[in-house]
């Protein structure tokens, strides 16, 4: 049985347990959020011994070289010494420059970072309220065009972070940023490839960034964005996207709702977003696809899009996990 040493104490790691499980069970205060190896909130550093490769999946090479790993995905095979990383180095300080309501339950949060921050639209970062509470959000902004980092924060009933943003955060307040991570972004080259983007709710945030990145990169293939909401008020960027599609002949915006009403514009399609998209584009051979939002929908779509002919390596899926 492997042992993990943290803050001078040695803990036994039971078979199949992770470092995070072990430390939490022993009342050690380790920040964490998704517990699925995505959000990087539980980043730790190994100072002695070797951690399994799986616990460094998705980390930057410079992080791997420094011995950073994800405690939630680390089932140690040998004895290791670990510590919490120096958060000063990992987290960038930012101040709130704008807070705008995009819908009843979606806030657009704009942050100005204290030092230059490199990212691609569509990647995600962890936003920290303080040393303990952090959540992952995707970047809707476009580097070089938008001065600020832009996030769409959906209010989750009972959600500690989103309630704080909606109810307590003010312009000028400080938020800390860690990241970016994720490979859901526009890649240069292949400008003639057709692109399909499907997202529900605030799954639109990364897709909006990717669409603008593609257009800015002078993408020549067709770009089809399907955004789904329960009802028309969930289509929170409807006007911006309609005008974007008027300005760019190769960009097509397909708004979808599960339930339309008598006031719903005739441009909005009623139905299941997966069916709507697959009926509009039955053959996806040679396409590139980006899927963001509800995990169940993302997984279902990934399979259907693959079966419709898209290469597995051309499907970028970003299921939104809730802490």
């Amino acid at each position: 049985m492997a042992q993990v040493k943290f803050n001078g104490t040695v803990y036994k790691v039971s078979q199949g347990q992770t470092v995070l499980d072990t430390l939490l069970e022993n009342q050690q205060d380790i920040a964490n959020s998704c517990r699925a190896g995505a959000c990087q909130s539980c980043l730790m550093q190994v100072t002695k011994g070797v951690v399994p490769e799986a616990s460094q999946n998705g980390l930057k090479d410079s992080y791997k070289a420094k011995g950073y790993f994800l405690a939630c995905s680390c089932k140690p095979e040998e004895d290791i010494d670990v510590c919490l990383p120096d958060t000063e180095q990992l987290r960038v300080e930012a101040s709130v420059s704008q807070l705008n309501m995009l819908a009843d339950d979606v806030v657009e949060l704009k942050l100005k970072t204290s030092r230059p921050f490199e990212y691609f639209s569509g990647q995600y970062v962890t936003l920290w309220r303080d040393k303990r509470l952090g959540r992952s959000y995707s970047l809707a902004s476009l580097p070089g065009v938008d001065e600020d980092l832009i996030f769409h924060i959906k209010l989750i009933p009972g959600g500690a972070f989103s309630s704080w943003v909606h109810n307590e955060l003010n312009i000028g307040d400080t938020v800390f940023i860690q990241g970016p991570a994720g490979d859901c972004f526009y890649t240069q080259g292949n400008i003639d490839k057709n692109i399909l983007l499907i997202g529900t709710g605030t799954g639109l945030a990364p897709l909006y960034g990717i669409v603008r990145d593609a257009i800015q990169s002078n993408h020549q293939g067709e770009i089809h964005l399907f955004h789904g909401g329960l009802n028309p008020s969930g289509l929170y960027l409807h006007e911006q996207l309609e005008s974007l599609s008027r300005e760019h002949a190769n960009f097509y915006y397909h708004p979808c709702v599960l339930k339309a009403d008598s006031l719903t514009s005739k441009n909005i399609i009623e139905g299941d977003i997966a069916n709507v998209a697959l009926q509009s584009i039955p053959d996806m051979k040679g396409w590139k696809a980006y899927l963001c939002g509800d995990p169940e929908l993302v997984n279902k779509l990934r399979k259907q899009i693959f079966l419709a002919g898209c290469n597995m390596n051309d499907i970028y899926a970003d299921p939104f996990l809730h802490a």
Partner: protein
Amino acid sequence: MSSLYERLGGEPAVDAAVDIFYRKVLSDDRVNGFFDAVDMEAQAAKQKGFLTMVFGGPNNYTGKDMREGHKHLVERGLNDSHVDAIIELLGGTLKELGVADADIQEVADLANSVRDDVLNR
């Protein structure tokens, strides 16, 4: 004379075959119940291992691995008809990629050679 794996085109050929083969498997009601489509990347990695083996490429599978890996599926009813279906889909994949009939037969023979281990008998 070159090996089967070399004639088929090595790893790039396996990569080209994985998507086509896995798509056929997921679309085929005879066998798709045995494949979990939730973790598609992990599934694709397993398909790649399988295809590398039946292409005659480098692999470290043992009979024991084959038995352990399919035990839970045999308990769920995996039988000869499913192995036949997989070999048929494999042949269809290779045909699409323009592989010669004699080589397809050789691949099918390799797949058949692990049939008893896969079915745990």
